[in-house]
């Protein structure tokens, strides 16, 4: 048997056709199959599809749909925060307290603020200044970083 004979024989199979009216029945059968498949679909698929249809009916594209979902999620989070504020504050307060506590002040001897015609005000608390004189009520001045307005003390220098 040659290749040509074989090819001719195989081409004859093109004449093998289904019985008359088959294609009309096929269409009906396919429709029936599609309806049956719709009924057998799982619930979550139907719910998802209906959600998509709902958004598509409101003329929103895929991006709008995603945006709407994100907005809904944000609204939910904000609503939860508003409705349950006490729990959130209780949980966060210890952290805030730790952050607010300042470190203890380091002693800084001989630190004065140079202010003209102003009452002397030490930068730190008087207790932290070892050289601070007792308060007399009189104004005190500082010249060249040395206090110059002390009242003459009763003690005198001896060389």
């Amino acid at each position, binding site marked *: 048997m040659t290749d040509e004979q*074989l090819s001719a024989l195989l081409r*004859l199979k*093109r004449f093998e056709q*289904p019985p008359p009216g088959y294609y009309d029945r096929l269409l009906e059968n396919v429709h029936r199959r599609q309806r049956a498949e719709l009924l057998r679909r799982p619930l979550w698929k139907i719910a998802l599809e209906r959600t998509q249809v709902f958004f598509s009916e409101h003329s929103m594209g895929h991006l709008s749909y995603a945006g709407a979902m994100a907005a809904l999620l944000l609204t939910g989070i904000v609503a939860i925060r508003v409705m349950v504020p006490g729990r959130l504050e209780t949980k966060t307060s210890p952290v805030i307290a730790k952050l607010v506590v300042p470190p203890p002040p380091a002693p800084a001897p001989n630190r004065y603020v140079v202010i003209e015609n102003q009452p002397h005000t030490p930068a730190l608390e008087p207790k932290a200044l070892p050289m601070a004189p007792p308060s007399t009520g009189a104004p005190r001045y500082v010249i060249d970083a040395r206090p110059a307005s002390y009242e003459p003390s009763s003690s005198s220098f001896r060389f």
Partner: protein
Amino acid sequence: MQDEQSRQQDDQLIARTQAGDAAAFDELIVKYSPRLYGLVYNMTSNHEDTNDLMQDIWSKAFRSITGFRGKSSFYTWIHSIGVNMTINFLKKRGRRFHLSLDDVDAGVQNDKEFIELTASSTPVREADLSELQKRLNEAMQKLSHDHRAVVTMFDIQGMPHAEIAKILGISEGTVRSRLFYAHRQLQNFLTEFL
């Protein structure tokens, strides 16, 4: 395999189907079912199996058409679904099959090629038409699924190598190679008869 006008018509029908017009999909079914039937039937050699498979193929195509992006023609796409589903079916069916090729179209007896073939060979002329068909189909069933698919598309449906390669997702060289071995096998099976 397809002219530009036909392809544009398909594109419109697909777009309408994707937009929810089921009637457009019916038009695609009517248009492509005869060729698809030939493909499936010549691979299964059984009308009942072919009928079931045709429904499965079109149902699957309907479910998947929303994902069809037109990278290939609809013709290639639906044939690809058809071949894959038929091969899967044949693998499940195994060797359990029976031929139902007793309803050959009467027009074949008037076909020019058939007359030439029977006139050129004395044994064939003497052979009964239904017997010839039966032997050919038995020979086809002895081929592997992949070889049968290639023979069906090339020799029976007249598709070019490139189209077959696209449908099966293989190279044209593989198509030619499979055709060569399939022809050798068929010739061996039919030598005794002719």
